[in-house]
């Protein structure tokens, strides 16, 4: 086989035009937080370009600390909708631009060859109608796969209201599909995006879910069944734009995880971009800490065996900002503690504040060899400043005072501001 390296050079004028478009359409796409490039199983089998089998790779990080893994752009920011929270809404006075299919393909391939990106995340404003837009997105993915032999990662946005046939085709070329429900409650959606209906978001989501189920069952019988969205589907909610509390947000999230087999739900702190009085004012802070607490809760649900109602319920409708949700749960459930590190089961170990799943596995392995004491636990890397109030180990030093939740919280907060200065011996001298 003879391989020829593409040496495409843009004529001067067209280079400047591409540059201009890229600036506009990357800027408009940046509020979509998903940048995941993992979970696909697309191997380089054709001696073509790219491979999406491994874990995701963040090739760079923006100055706001977010991962840059994919070329994340809109095909166009022309849009027929007028959703208040969205920067590309029809009524917003901004520069508009649109890429041609081939332009997106060239950018993706040339960025990929230089190891800048893991692949493409293509979204779009809705022009003409849902199907017309979805068709263009699918065309880009199809061209990358069939003409360019591209095996990198492709994430396509499912356009609300797109037909089943197009969603079927999209999944054949894309690794991940996503449709953003944006506003956690239907009433909020009605207020901020009167043109949009919840069922328009749900329709493509259901189609993709069913196709994935079908693909998985057919694959068991016929190995060569063409892949369908191997990295699954995800969605995103905006936080702090429409007054929902954390309980409502996480219930919605839980609902989507359970009923649509989503891989991920993303939470995006609202960045004020509009003078619309229905929304937080321009210049008000992005709720980043709240966003972080929601992600922690999401992790507790997906990896730590928590039920959403244990963390958020009618009595506790909002997450604490000063402490993490697991610690908050533990303080409300002191009757479950202390537990013995050397005998407790995995479920309870995962519930100890200051223990991540990595530490849990290390403890489960290490305690087969000997009983673990504070020194072992410290070396394994658990956060003793939080964990010490909830555990016993092979030592006669342990918390003997009957501390209230408030007291423990006070100690932990006091300690965590100076956790880098204090050594373990100082922390242990707290026991008395």
């Amino acid at each position, binding site marked *: 086989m003879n*391989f020829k*390296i593409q*040496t*495409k*050079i*843009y004529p001067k004028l067209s*280079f400047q035009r*591409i*540059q201009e478009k*890229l*600036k506009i359409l*990357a*800027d408009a*796409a*940046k*509020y979509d937080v998903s940048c995941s490039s993992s979970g696909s199983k697309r191997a*380089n089998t054709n*001696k*073509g*370009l*790219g*491979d999406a*089998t*491994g874990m995701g*790779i*963040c*090739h*760079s*990080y*923006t*100055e*706001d*600390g*977010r*991962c*840059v893994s994919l*070329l*994340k752009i809109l095909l166009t920011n022309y849009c027929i909708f007028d959703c208040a929270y969205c920067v590309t809404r029809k009524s917003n006075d901004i520069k508009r631009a649109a890429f041609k299919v081939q332009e997106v393909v060239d*950018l993706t391939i*040339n*960025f990929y*060859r*230089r*190891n*800048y990106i893991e692949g493409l995340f293509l979204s779009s404003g809705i022009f003409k109608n849902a199907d017309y837009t979805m068709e263009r997105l699918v065309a880009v993915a199809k061209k990358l796969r069939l003409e360019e*032999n591209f095996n990198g990662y492709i994430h396509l946005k499912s356009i609300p209201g797109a037909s089943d046939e197009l969603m079927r085709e999209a999944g054949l070329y894309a690794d991940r599909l996503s449709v953003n429900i944006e506003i956690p409650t239907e009433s909020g959606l009605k207020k901020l995006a009167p043109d949009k209906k919840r069922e328009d978001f749900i329709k493509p989501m259901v189609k993709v879910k069913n196709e994935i189920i079908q693909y998985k069952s057919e694959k068991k019988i016929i190995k060569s069944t063409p892949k369908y969205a191997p990295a699954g589907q995800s969605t995103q909610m905006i936080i702090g734009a429409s007054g929902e509390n954390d309980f409502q947000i996480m219930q919605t999230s839980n609902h989507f995880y359970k009923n649509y087999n989503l891989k991920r739900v993303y939470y995006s*702190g609202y*960045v*004020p971009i509009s003078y619309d009085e229905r929304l937080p004012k321009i210049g008000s802070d*992005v709720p980043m800490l709240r966003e972080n607490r929601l992600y922690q809760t999401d992790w507790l649900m997906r990896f730590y065996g928590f039920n959403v109602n244990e963390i958020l319920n009618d009595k506790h409708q909002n997450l604490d900002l000063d402490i993490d949700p697991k610690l908050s749960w533990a303080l409300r459930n002191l009757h479950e503690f202390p537990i013995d590190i050397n005998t407790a089961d995995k479920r309870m170990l995962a519930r100890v504040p200051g223990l991540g799943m990595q530490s849990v596995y*290390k403890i489960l*392995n*290490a305690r*087969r*060899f*000997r009983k*673990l004491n504070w020194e*072992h636990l410290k*070396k*394994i890397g658990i956060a003793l400043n939080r964990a010490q109030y909830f555990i016993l180990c092979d030592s006669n030093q342990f918390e003997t005072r009957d501390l209230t939740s408030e007291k423990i919280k006070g100690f932990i907060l006091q300690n965590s501001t100076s956790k880098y200065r204090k050594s373990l011996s100082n922390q242990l001298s707290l026991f008395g």
Partner: protein
Amino acid sequence: MQKKNLIYDGTFDGFLSAVFYVFEHKIGDVSIRNGFDVQETMFSENETIMSEEAKANRVWKGLKSKLSAQGSYHIYYAFLSEKPGVENVLLDYIRYAFENTNADKDYSHPSVLKIAQIAKMVGREKHRMEAFVRFRLTKDGIYFASIEPDFNVLPIILKHFKRRYADQKWVIYDIKRHYGLFYDLDTVDIINMDFPANFDFTKTNSDYFADQEFEFQKLWKDYFKATNIKSRKNMKLHVRHVPKRYWKYLSEKQPD
């Protein structure tokens, strides 16, 4: 009895041959040292170890039968860290592994934990290089990247790049260790290159690099800027993810 120093040639096979020697001669008080940075020490006896593939393979096979896959790759990764004295921690680990089953799971053993931690650092560096390598297209159609990793990670990133860039010629060159990998569309070879005395690896010089290279670097920088959200600026987090020592080879971090 005098302490013995075993001097090996710096290769993994050489190190395993030294381990073989330790077991063969049942030496207790011993230190394994890399011949390239060994210093004369008083009150100890030096012995030079020849690298022997057969012996190295026997040790490696034995380890693999005693350890999980993770355990044996921890040993290799930790070796590539080139940290001073790591050979002796490895030897302690290996001795423990031959005497106990599943030793690699014993995170309360000091050497096991230490090696797991070093392996993690090397693994992190490997992952960083898979992320931070920036290819630049040369005039003769080869995608070229230069790196200066903290650890000797070229051997463990080879597979990743070979699988991924199967249809383009590429070179990844470790400036610190003076060798590189070259993929010619078929196999990957280890190469040594001579660069002009005034060659600046951080600059893209039009004498060597293709015209389109400048355009795509520009587009990538534009993209990098446009995708940032100013109201969320967090430089502390940014620098934690992209430590400053890597900036000089990242196209997006070059001054305009």
